[in-house]
């Protein structure tokens, strides 16, 4: 049985909130996507199946709209509004990202809807919050990210290069994570109280509190972090942690060894690969292996021995990295107990045996294409309530008739 079985969600289609609807749908909610006659614009976003544009071929739309049904409704028409109200009467959750006064102008805002569905949970996800006129300014993921803070912390040591925004609408997705958490919270509360509520989610506020040290360094003592290549933005510039391996791929070296067992495993590994002979600082690794207890990292730079041992560990990692592939470095270091990571491209991660064995890739039947496609799978595994893509993304209005019929049966 699904965790959200029996929960009906009405989603007014928007690129900004599609991920929230997917999170709900893939956990079993009955998500009804309301689209205008022309369809949601993201239906025409690339990439396309076999690189051929056309109806129902957008992989972007297909990903973000799994486990949903589609109804075409013109919310500007009286008939559309009346159908919308009938749908709301059957719904638990409304999620939307409309201009801030649009629903009120149509008499379809929370104050109106709560009269026909008293325990409704209405979630509005907007760029700056429902009460903020700037929410109606045109915005894209890029501009919201810039305003919300993440790019300030992301980029390179060379500050003549611009700050970097990560790929793939992470700003919208962060807003959606908060929307979904809010809905789950409100459902748990409704279970004991019977009441619903209106929830105002701000995408830029979500980004503002998803920047780790950038925000709290300012809040605590008004210091400003500086972006650095492939590692945490900090007040001061730190040592590089991203290095190139023998196969031309990068790894993140994490925290250098600081426990005796880690030094010992490093020595063993370097001896096995013949690297120890070419490493003049090997004696410091031996000292590290014989050290009593972990290092006090705060004494690096002050205590000569600790500094020499710590630096030798770091140098050893760089030497190893230059001699093996990124994947060998990752698995070798991890087996020595060191927390390092291979910098995979998304597709390389997807093909990794670990995720395959855990069942991350899933097959979804596309009756419309006459084939199954492989999708990214469960972000979490609830044994009693398996995550699942219950259906491929809907065609435009594919379920209009069936949903209208179900509403007629009710009346």
């Amino acid at each position: 049985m699904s965790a959200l079985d029996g929960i009906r969600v009405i989603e007014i289609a928007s690129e900004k909130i599609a991920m929230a609807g997917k999170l709900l749908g893939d956990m079993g909610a009955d998500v009804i996507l309301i689209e205008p006659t022309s369809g949601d614009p993201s239906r025409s976003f690339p990439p396309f199946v076999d690189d051929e544009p056309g109806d129902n071929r957008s992989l972007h739309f297909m990903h973000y709209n799994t486990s949903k049904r589609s109804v075409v409704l013109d919310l500007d028409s009286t008939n559309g509004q009346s159908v919308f109200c009938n749908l709301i009467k059957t719904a638990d959750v409304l999620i939307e990202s409309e201009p801030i006064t649009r629903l009120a102008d149509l008499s379809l805002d929370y104050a109106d809807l709560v009269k026909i569905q008293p325990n409704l949970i209405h979630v509005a996800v907007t760029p700056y919050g429902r009460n903020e006129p700037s929410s109606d300014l045109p915005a894209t993921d890029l501009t919201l990210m810039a305003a919300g803070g993440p790019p300030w912390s992301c980029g390179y040591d060379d500050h003549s290069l611009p700050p970097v925004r990560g790929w793939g609408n992470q700003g919208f997705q962060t807003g959606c994570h908060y929307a979904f958490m809010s809905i789950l919270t409100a459902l748990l509360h409704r279970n004991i109280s019977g009441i619903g509520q209106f929830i105002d989610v701000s995408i830029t506020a979500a980004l503002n509190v998803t920047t780790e040290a950038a925000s709290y360094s300012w809040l605590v003592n008004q210091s400003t972090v500086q972006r650095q290549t492939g590692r945490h933005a900090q007040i001061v510039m730190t040592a590089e942690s991203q290095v190139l391996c023998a196969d031309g791929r990068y790894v993140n070296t994490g925290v250098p060894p600081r426990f005796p067992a880690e030094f010992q495993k490093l020595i063993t590994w370097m001896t096995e690969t013949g690297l120890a002979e070419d490493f003049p600082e090997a004696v410091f690794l031996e000292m590290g292996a014989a050290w009593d207890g972990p290092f006090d990292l705060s004494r690096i730079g002050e205590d000569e021995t600790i500094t020499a041992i710590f630096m030798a560990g770091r140098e050893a990692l760089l030497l190893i990295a230059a001699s093996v592939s990124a994947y060998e470095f990752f698995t070798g270091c991890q087996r020595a107990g060191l927390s390092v990571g291979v910098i995979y491209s998304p597709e390389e991660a997807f093909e990794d045996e670990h995720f395959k064995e855990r069942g991350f890739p899933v097959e979804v039947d596309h009756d419309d294409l006459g084939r199954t496609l492989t999708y990214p799978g469960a972000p979490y595994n609830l044994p009693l309530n398996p995550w699942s893509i219950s259906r491929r993304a809907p065609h435009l209005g594919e379920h209009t008739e069936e949903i209208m019929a179900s509403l007629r049966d009710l009346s």
Partner: protein
Amino acid sequence: MTGALSHFRICDFTGQLAGAGATKWLAAFGANVIRIEDPVKQGRWDILRGTGPFIDDRRGIDMGGAFNNHNTNKKGITLNLRTSKGKEILTELIKISDAVTENFAEGVLNKWGFGYESLKAIKPDIVYVSNCGFGHKGPYSSFKTWGPIVQAVSGLTFSSALPGQPPAGWGYSYMDHTGGYYMAMAIMLALLERDKSGEGQWVDLACTEAGLSLNGPALLDWTVNNRPMRQPDGFSSNRSQYSLMAPHGMYPCSGDDEWIAIACRDDNDWQVLASFINEVWCGDYSSLENRLDRQDELDESIENWTKQKEKFDLQDRLRQLSIPVAAVQKPGERIDHDPTTGNFALWPTVTHSEMGDVRVDGLPVHFSETDWEMTAGGPCLSEHTEEVLVELLGMTSGEVVKLREEGVI
């Protein structure tokens, strides 16, 4: 306070941000989150306990600014789980808890004798959520991670980059934040199931899988079209991806390290921007196809135009023209000068028992009926041990003193 989640008690072993962030959300909505720490190691498993930023010159396990930020409104107790009495007390606490949460390396809780089977024997409907980098099953389950390692392995570091450069990655633990969000979702989904069926369960959350799921369309482009994101010439993640736009980037402004993000969604946006720039070169780019094909050249012309301009002034002007634009805001600008964050009450002041009043990250949501509250800072080590043992477990103050003498708490 009576909040949306005040009817839940969480027996919480989480720390850092990937775990603590999850229970921060629950505590802000009123859940009784009891954080359990090791008195022998003075709670140092959570490296943020004693690390900066610091409010003043004081240092120590109770003075960590990040720890305070991530642990608002939680109770903190110490329990030595090496002792049988410590285990007994934990058992009693689990009996009156709804969920047990942790983000240790794989197998740690089990080693202490509190794996899922034991938890279930103590409290049959317990919800147990573990959050570790690679999960508790699979070839890499013993591998250790922290945020940047999760980001590296799940493809997110790679997908943040400029062409001809190494990955830029994320200048913070995006997947500690987001891993915490997924952990909070998992806890609440399992509590919803328990509301319905009365059954608990163990959710094995692998942070790397949550990370992988954040590049969905790129993964479909791979599985369906065999198109890898790893390309010989690299890519700029600042450029548009799915909804194609140009110009679309971060451009320099006057001053030191000042930038502005500008996006033209369509030909109309571009025509409006081009008339505003009003330079000869603008005429060369009338179609989207043309702008996408010659985007390097276009970006260079725009850079030359923006670099003499002050970012907030340019932001205001382009906003009036209805072009998507935003200054790249520095922390102080978005926290203290951007009125939208203040209007949203995003930075509440909490009271920490040692540090005093400190501003922290609030939550980016508001509920009309049961909104969140943050009033108390992160707990000092063992700050609520006596309160919890006396008020929840019915011990006497004398018993608590004895436990302290015996090194149990």
